[in-house]
């Protein structure tokens, strides 16, 4: 079948291109290319990225059988592989810990592994063997549902740039020391830890993503942080802890990030920041901060409002602001401290760059309206202010609109969009 008129189109392309093609195929198809022709027999065996998931093997009703065939597939693939393996990814929902994973990790640790992603199923969490800590060249590590216990002799991953631990059982001291012993760490994501109290020292950290119940977070040494996304859940213990704590959370969290460009906070983030003594004047100005998104801000809590204002007034170059409210309308109707807006509100903060504002889940409570009024009055470059009322509010919408109409606008081009669902 190999006539001169129909020459082989693809087998003689450089190996780098073949690898580029094979790594874009699901691993099963890539391995299958070994029976295409004699030239293709081992082309797949030198690819440096191995990505395994549940589509590698035929589905089966018997879970035991399915797991066995997946284990066999991966073991054989590793056994037949030649050369370094730079990326290994295993994503499953069924698979739990099993002794074969230890052997795979040992094999990988001897083959210059650089990126390791292990996402295992629910159930008994996999206890990561110590050979993982011998992977000197690791640049990216992602673990889902594992147990991590660094040995005392572990001195850190010197090349690690990205660390993502999701539902990982590890002691707080171990995490802290892991973070601080990875000098090149740029991206850190920690999710679903229980009541974690953490001090983060990562001089090269640029991206931080936290989600879970955090008792206490202190960004002690993160001068290069560029983007941060935090979702804080609250339990009763943590709430109590908050009430008793005295350190200023705002400063401890946001006091050392002058280069921040993007800040996203969910759920109890503003509440968390509001805890603690009054910080007074902020030590730094967020000159690079352009986008701020704060969700579930409770406008009935004066302290949370103060947090938001404090943040905004120290962000001279803010471009985009998005705030979603979560007010309990009944409680907020009384609205004590409403005179704050007339008397104590800072008047010298002009948001010269603010262009887009999005207010969602608005209930129309007094403090929310005053805040909107404040924004409109202090943003001469505003282009769009969109307001979406909370779905539960039906009657109060007209009142909201009436109030909105009255507000003075510093920007002549500002459009106010009232978005009904």
């Amino acid at each position, binding site marked *: *079948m*190999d006539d001169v008129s129909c020459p082989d189109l693809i087998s003689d392309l450089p190996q780098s291109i073949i690898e580029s*093609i094979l790594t874009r195929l*699901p691993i099963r198809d890539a391995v299958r290319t070994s029976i*295409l022709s004699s030239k293709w027999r081992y082309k797949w065996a030198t690819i440096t990225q191995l990505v395994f998931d549940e589509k590698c093997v035929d589905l089966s009703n018997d879970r035991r059988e399915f797991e066995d065939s997946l284990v066999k597939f991966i073991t054989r693939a590793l056994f037949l592989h030649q050369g370094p393996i730079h990326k290994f990814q295993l994503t499953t929902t069924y698979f739990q810990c099993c002794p074969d994973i230890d052997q795979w990790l040992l094999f990988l640790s001897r083959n210059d592994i650089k990126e390791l992603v292990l996402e295992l199923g629910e159930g008994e969490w996999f206890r990561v063997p110590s050979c993982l800590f011998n992977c000197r060249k690791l640049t990216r590590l992602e673990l889902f549902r594992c147990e991590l216990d660094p040995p005392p002799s572990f001195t850190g991953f010197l090349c690690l740039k990205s660390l993502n631990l999701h539902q990982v059982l590890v002691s707080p001291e171990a995490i802290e020391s892991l973070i601080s012993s990875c000098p090149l760490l740029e991206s850190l994501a920690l999710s679903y830890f229980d009541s974690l109290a953490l001090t983060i020292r990562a001089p090269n950290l640029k991206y931080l993503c936290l989600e879970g119940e955090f008792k206490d977070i202190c960004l002690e040494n993160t001068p290069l942080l560029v983007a941060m996304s935090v979702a804080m859940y609250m339990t009763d213990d943590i709430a109590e802890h908050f009430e008793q704590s005295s350190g200023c959370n705002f400063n401890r969290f946001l006091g050392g990030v002058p280069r921040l460009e993007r800040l996203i906070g969910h759920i109890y983030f503003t509440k968390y920041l509001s805890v603690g003594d009054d910080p007074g004047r902020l030590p730094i100005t967020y000159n690079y901060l352009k986008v701020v998104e704060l969700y579930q801000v409770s406008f009935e809590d004066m302290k949370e409002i103060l947090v938001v204002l404090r943040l905004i007034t120290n962000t001279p170059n803010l471009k985009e602001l998005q705030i979603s409210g979560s007010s309990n309308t009944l409680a907020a109707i009384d609205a004590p401290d409403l005179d704050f807006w007339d008397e104590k509100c800072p008047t010298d903060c002009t948001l010269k760059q603010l262009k887009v504002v999005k207010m969602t889940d608005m209930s129309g409570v007094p403090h929310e309206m005053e805040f909107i009024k404040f924004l409109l009055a202090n943003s001469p470059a505003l282009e769009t202010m969109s307001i979406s009322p909370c779905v539960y509010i039906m009657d109060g919408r007209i009142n909201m609109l009436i109030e909105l109409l009255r507000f003075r606008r510093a920007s002549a081009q500002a459009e106010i969009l009232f978005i009904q669902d």
Partner: protein
Amino acid sequence: MSEVDMAVIKPEMMKSYIWLQTADGSIQQVEQEVAMFCPMICHEVIQKGMGSSKNYAISLPQRVNPAMLSLILDYCRFHQVPGRSNKERKSFDEKFIRMDTKRLCELTSAADSLQLKPLVDLTSRALARIIEGKTPEEIREIFHLPDDLTEEEKLEPLKNTTDDPRIRLLNRLYAKKRKELKEREKLKNVEAEEERVDDRSVDDLLSFINGDNGDSKGIKTSKSKKKNRRRKDQQKSTSANEANKNHSEESNGLNSVCHSSEVDQKIQPSIGATSNLQDVEDDIFANKNEFDDGDIDDEIDPALKEKIDREVEDFARRLNSDWPERMQEILSLGQERKAVHFPLNGNGSIRSRDDFKVRILP
């Protein structure tokens, strides 16, 4: 409107051009910003100053034919404009990549030689999409691949037959035992050789002495010694292939005796009663008797002598008790395995191979 027209209408907007030459010899000029989007061309211009005129046209790699070049330049022309949104770029890419497979492969090759990574990624993705989910026959059809694997090779499962951990363990153990055996044999062969060497040197000495002295008795003895030796050698060779180990074991015990270059008469009674041993013994004692000049020192100190005693006794015991059984086994194993089985425990009983397996497997 061609570039030339544009240049005439708005002379202040005249662009600069780069001259490119493809492998077939044809030369064309391309707007500078478009051409510079290719790292290879960029390198040529900046590092080597090429491409500024027709005479100094940059020669493109062989894989870039004019058709491919024009495609690549279209790609560059679109993407080098900075203001485009991601969406625009994506939709351009999708449309751009629609071509037959042959051109796609050529394009990949050409883009790779110009080091234009975004285009290589795009085309690789397209090729991967073509390959994904198809049967091998379909893939061969599309890419004109020769179907040159034998049926066996195709059917050969992608599993390695030794990947059963128990079999691997067994193989490892066997390999280890075989290696040990080989080493021991080597040692014994060396020792056996040395022993023979020793004999010869004594013979030589004897004949020398006899030759000098003309002692008939000596000659006789030496002859008989030679005969004995021959007999012993013969026996050695016949049993060598089958019972090397046994013989070596004997020699081992005796060798320490020989090395001391004389024989202690006291050892004699403790040596075992096989015929081979007797022969060797006879030879040695014959020599000893001949010499008998007291120059030969008894260099075996008592401790070593005791050790030797014990070794020899041990060997003798083992040999005597297991000899028939062992002979049987050894004969049945054949040439390859020269008395494979070590006793697995200290007391010298031999276990069969199946027994061995049973101990390993769960």
